[in-house]
């Protein structure tokens, strides 16, 4: 009995050709889109970009981002502020005081910016008792201020005073 081979099935070479076309489409699409960047972790080598640090006089903190009030050597910030404290020739101090709401103060990080780059000055929660952070000579400080765990979206106040 004769057995006819189904013509609907592609031959072996045809199957390879179809596979090649599919691969070609995948490669072409990948090249065209540049890939989905978010699926691959970028390297840590990308250098940080410095925020603007060329404004404000010695001992006069100023806002880079966020809101509040700044008067001379004193500043009051709301949650999510980023504050620059310009450097002075002499050493100084940063006096940080936080408002309390439900018993928890704001979370603050102080970063020194000097000739040798950035370094962490201090970080933690600030309550009404306040925290004193030294400011080395010829060193600027970036003070960042976010919500603490318990406060959720509520605003907090941070008082920052630059003292000699």
């Amino acid at each position, binding site marked *: 009995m004769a057995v006819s081979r189904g013509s609907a099935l592609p031959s072996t070479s045809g199957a390879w*050709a179809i596979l090649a076309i599919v691969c070609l489409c995948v490669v072409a699409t990948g090249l065209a889109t540049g890939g989905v*960047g978010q699926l691959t972790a970028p390297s840590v080598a990308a250098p940080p970009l*410095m925020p603007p640090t060329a404004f404000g006089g010695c001992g006069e903190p100023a806002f880079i*981002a966020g809101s509040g009030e700044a008067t001379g050597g004193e500043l009051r910030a709301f949650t999510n502020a980023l504050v620059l404290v310009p450097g002075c020739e002499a050493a100084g101090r940063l006096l940080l005081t936080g408002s309390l709401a439900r018993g928890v103060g704001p*979370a603050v*990080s102080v970063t020194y910016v000097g000739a040798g780059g950035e370094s962490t000055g201090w970080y933690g929660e600030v309550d009404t008792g306040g925290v004193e952070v030294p400011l080395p000579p010829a060193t600027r400080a970036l003070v960042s201020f976010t919500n*603490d*765990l318990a406060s959720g979206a509520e605003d907090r106040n941070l008082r920052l005073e630059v003292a000699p």
Partner: protein
Amino acid sequence: MRSYLTASAVFALLVGIVALVADRVPSLANAVPPPRLAWAFIPQGVPEGAPFAAWFGFDAAAPSGLPAAVQLRVCDLEGACLLGARKAVTERSSSGLVTITRALPPGEYDLHLLVLRPNRLGVTRTVQVVSRRVTYGG
């Protein structure tokens, strides 16, 4: 059969080449340059219980008319990562803050600030990354 396959292959190749050229040669698509971060700040030390955060500022004119967004990704030192919510960048919000989880255990993490932008094919691409190793809590 063979001629059909050959034609299909050539067509697929042409589509790929056209898409590649359209994506890589901005002048062909009248493309606007992607937004560029003018500055970014990631604190090296984050208090435990506070969110990981990054402050950013774009060139004033860059975000105009572009559907750009920023997003944080935090990775532990073994490479497991979490992505935060995307935050759109517009002319009104060309600087600000983006945050991500506060629920990780104390330790060292790599924090990446990603600038995202969809390309002409609608695929979101990372066009700029600023990274820093961060100490959380401790």
